[in-house]
């Protein structure tokens, strides 16, 4: 259908968009790379010249580096597990016919509309505050000692807050996937003698494979760079310093742009390693 002429016209017309996207990506990337090889201290003399691989070596050898990588992976992994498991359960629940279905579905999606900063503040002050929070009152009602969530169980608390934000996204995607399941498959399985649990494992779960893959991939991209939730709640203390947060501290608190940029390059590498693993594990679901 496409002639030589229409193809070259199409390329010409797509060119501005492609160019814009390339510039959008390449300029910050090359600036990060450039600064990562400079000794650049804005408040202590500015650009102090070529630094070679000093920044890279210093960033990795810092005692905060490996713990921050671990923290990042734990948060991403924890949130993924919670959102996928509960997302599947919630999606199956919402797929059942019930009174007020439309309203319930909108309510379930609501957390996704709350800004990360706001939701973190709400959780921190209204739920997790050790003296005035709802959890503290609940604990006291049952005669237990209130937990100071953000210091005693800091990582778990942050995983909980972030999971709460992302659960609607997972639920929504999985709900649409469940709705696309041909009901006669379930009926056939029922006649074939499959109990509800077997029907879930043999029919529903494989059908959801592709949707789960998409949820995992998209969430990983966003979760690797969570920042607001940590900044607002613990400020990176109590073992909640992720790689993103460490870079932020290097750049703004230590005023060392070169070191921070080197950290940024490590973050890119980490993201790629994670992506590679994910593609290996779940990517095959996207074929066929």
């Amino acid at each position, binding site marked *: 259908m496409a002639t030589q002429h229409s193809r070259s016209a199409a390329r010409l017309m797509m060119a501005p968009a492609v160019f814009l996207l390339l510039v959008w990506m390449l300029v910050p990337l090359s600036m990060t790379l450039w600064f990562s090889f400079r000794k650049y201290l804005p408040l202590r003399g500015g650009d102090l010249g070529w630094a070679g691989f000093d920044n890279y070596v210093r960033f990795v050898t810092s005692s905060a580096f490996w713990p921050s990588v671990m923290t990042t992976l734990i948060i991403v992994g924890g949130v993924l597990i919670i959102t996928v498991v509960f997302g599947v359960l919630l999606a199956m629940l919402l797929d059942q016919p019930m009174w007020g279905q439309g309203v319930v579905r909108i309510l379930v999606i609501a957390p996704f509309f709350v800004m990360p900063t706001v939701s973190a503040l709400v959780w921190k002050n209204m739920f997790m505050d050790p003296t005035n929070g709802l959890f503290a009152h609940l604990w006291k009602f049952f005669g237990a000692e209130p937990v100071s969530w953000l210091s005693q169980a800091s990582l778990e608390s942050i995983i909980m807050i972030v999971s709460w934000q992302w659960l609607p996204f997972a639920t929504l995607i999985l709900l649409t996937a469940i709705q696309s399941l*041909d009901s*006669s*498959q379930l*009926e*056939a*399985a*029922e*006649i*074939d*003698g*499959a*109990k509800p649990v*077997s029907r879930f494992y*043999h*029919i529903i779960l*494989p*059908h959801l*494979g592709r949707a789960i893959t998409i949820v995992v991939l998209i969430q990983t991209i966003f979760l690797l760079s969570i920042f607001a939730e940590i900044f607002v709640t613990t400020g990176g203390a109590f073992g909640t310093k992720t790689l993103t947060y460490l870079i932020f501290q290097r750049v703004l608190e230590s005023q060392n742009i070169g070191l921070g940029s080197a950290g940024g390059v490590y973050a890119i590498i980490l993201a790629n390693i994670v992506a590679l693993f994910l593609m290996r594990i779940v990517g095959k679901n996207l074929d*066929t």
Partner: protein
Amino acid sequence: MGRIQLKQVKKSFGDVTVIPPLDLEINDGEFVVFVGPSGCGKSTLLRLIAGLEDMTDGKIEIDGQDATSLPPAKRKLAMVFQSYALYPHMTVRKNIAFPMRMAGMDQAEQDKRIASAAKALNLTDYLDRRPGQLSGGQRQRVAIGRAIVREPEAFLFDEPLSNLDAALRVGMRMEISELHKKLATTMVYVTHDQVEAMTMADKIVVLQAGVIEQVGSPLELYRAPRNKFVAGFIGSPKMNLIEGAEATKHNAQTIGIRPEHVEVSTTDGLWQGTVGVAEHLGSDTFIHVHGVPGCDPMTVRVGGEIPVTHGDTVFLTPNLQHLHRFDAEGLRLA
């Protein structure tokens, strides 16, 4: 044994009654076809037998035992769906094995049954493929294979051929009929296609709006339709129904004559008309004749070829032996 009895079975969805109380008996080894226009409740009736829908009222007995509240899996019935309902992520082998796996059958027996089903259905070369890599006819055979290996008391087919093209449909029709002869198991088959019903059934159940209009063998229905609806539904092309003066001559509200029971002549006959469309099929010629009083157009069938075209005048004479008479309620007059 696969004897199924429906006693005063009733189904409503909310206030809408889809199936008013009906009785039906399906004998062991019979090939029963439910036929009717779409929305007549034939699929619902099949799903009631399968246990996929709950009955509003009434009783279903399978082999003399009350199965009304049995779950689908316990009824020892196998069902083949219109959409095939194969499990897309499993290979053909696993699809066929699924009911046996669920029943916890041992592996050797499973393999044996899969092998014999695959051989019977020409699927041996496709056992390791997924349903997505098969053609429509092959998918249909996998669905049948999945039903066979359970060795059920009865097979339920829900419009299994409607997703296939015309040539394949004729082939599969034959295969299912042969399967029935070989297994001698009860089969209940739902279709809206009266040709399928006529060619396959031992017993046809004609349904309209949830009501059984007539039950009988294909030829009984063809020879003596109980009312106007069955008369018009069974037979292809449709029976011509004539009202008015011509019908009164025979002391009936309506008379019916099948296209194959009308003599066509270009010179003389009882009724005169002009040819609208003549369909020349070679073996037969179907002529739609306009201008016959009380029936316009009248369809007639002539064996072989007859040289008439649009606008020609023809004369028609009904074979009175094959005339059907109906009263004001549309019921057959003896």
